[in-house]
């Protein structure tokens, strides 16, 4: 299910992007970075620093920024803060939604839905309605919905922030596994230092509003990453560095 080989090694590029809202709020200030194929890039920063604005601009949900935003891929995955499932659709029909909107034919849609429901461990829950699922399962369904598009670039807007710690760790592990098997480029937003280090190949630190990128950390660990990596000395050291950078960003 890997996306076809791409000529362009850069999945997403922000070049001197600034964004001010009509009410005068400056959300982003001269933000430049790129997400290359094979990279899992996480942006971490204080609440309200404009992290979500980066994703909304990258996906085209938000317009009006100055600077250049280049998205190399048509197939965009997007997981929101809330699962945003449609309550009147079963899990299966929710998972099929994006493929449906993109005009994928019905039999192919059903095939892909089966495949991704299996991938995220929701096989057996296909005919449930969202209100019958736990928070973690809803997030899995939300993840599956984007996976049906076989995204080359996957955007995550603090998807696991509302979940309990254990569920969150489980989903981090599953996402890291999907990153290896599905080979998408990822841009992930979070508040959590541990989540950022565990998932990413690179972590960017954003300052308080207006958001500027103030630090960048490479995370050298190989995938697959075992759950116990979180207690490794090298991991903890990196988390410490990130924490220090984040403190400066809050200042």
């Amino acid at each position, binding site marked *: 299910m890997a996306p076809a080989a791409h000529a362009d090694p850069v999945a997403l590029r922000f070049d001197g992007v600034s964004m001010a809202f009509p009410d005068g709020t400056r959300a982003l200030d001269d933000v430049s970075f790129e997400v290359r194929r094979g990279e899992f890039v996480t942006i971490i920063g204080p609440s309200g620093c404009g992290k979500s604005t980066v994703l909304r601009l990258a996906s085209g*949900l938000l317009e009006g920024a100055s600077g250049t935003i280049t998205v190399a891929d048509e197939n965009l995955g997007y997981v*929101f803060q809330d699962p945003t499932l*449609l309550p*009147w*659709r079963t899990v299966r029909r929710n998972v099929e939604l994006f493929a*449906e*909107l993109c005009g994928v034919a019905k039999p192919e849609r059903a095939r892909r839905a089966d495949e991704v429901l299996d991938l995220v461990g929701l096989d057996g829950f296909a005919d449930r*309605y969202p*209100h019958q699922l736990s928070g973690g399962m809803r997030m899995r369904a939300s993840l599956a919905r984007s996976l049906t598009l076989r995204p080359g670039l996957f955007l995550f807007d603090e998807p696991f922030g509302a979940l309990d710690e254990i569920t969150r760790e489980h989903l981090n592990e599953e996402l890291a596994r999907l990153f290896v098997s599905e080979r998408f480029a990822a841009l992930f937003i979070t508040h959590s230092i541990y989540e950022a280090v565990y998932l990413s190949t690179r972590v960017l630190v954003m300052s308080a509003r207006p958001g500027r990128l103030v630090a960048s950390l490479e995370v050298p660990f190989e995938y697959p990453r075992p759950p116990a990596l979180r207690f490794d000395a090298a991991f903890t050291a990196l988390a410490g560095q990130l924490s220090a950078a984040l403190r400066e960003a809050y200042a």
Partner: protein
Amino acid sequence: MSASTPGGAPRPEPAGPGATGSASVGRGKRRTERLGPFVVFVLFIGLWYLVSGWAIDAVFGKPSFLLPPPHQVIAAGFLDNAMIRGQMFEGVWLSAQVAFLGLAIAIVVGMGLAVLMSRARWIERSLYPYAVALQAVPILAFVPLIGSFFGFDFTSRVLVCVIISVFPIIANTLFGLLSAEPGQHDLFTLYAASGRQRLLKLQFPAALPSIFTGLRISAGLAVIGAVVGDFFFRQGEPGIGRLIDVYRSRNDNAEMFAAVILAAALGIAVFWLFGFLGRLAMGRWHESTGQR
């Protein structure tokens, strides 16, 4: 905005504290639920007897024939006289046809207008005042006009039903179409959904709960419209409203109340029907949204 309580929806038993010792409490609760309607019914009938047998004379000082007791109403309307019984059921059947046709037209017109208004703010701002006005203007004012245009029989009665029942459909459908959450709209924006896809796959399903609220209100109003229309448009086969009027003018109060009961039963039947259709359409998912 019109609103009503969800009619007849089975209320989920709250899984409260002390679940272990609650078996008898639960059974008692269920007994109360079955007993409640029965007790209220008995009280209602008792009150009726009290008023017709005693209070009407002793308290109000009116002749007792004005409100015959329940058994006389049932006997006079449905048991004693086959001809009257036939008249009654033909009348209510005709009124049901008037109400259903009127309601059907109101649904098509009302939902169509609501969809149109949901497309753009300026359309809503231009049309909505007229919808409100239609609701507020007394139907009596339109009677001569409607009668002279469409005749004093079936067509005009249907039109009264449409006028009287269309507003809750417009208001509730529009409210529902605009109630889809911004996050859900983002999903459709993200993948460049067409306006049609957004309407059919997002806005319309999101609107279903309030559409059915509107339908239940409008269904009752359509029955009122059919009865009221009978009072104004007196040609053609008599509906239940005409019968009420005829019995009233003859001082046949037992028959009149029997006809009123039939009209009320028709109202309850259509209200129940739309409640049932609503549960059929959204029973499996709507509980979640209803409980929030």
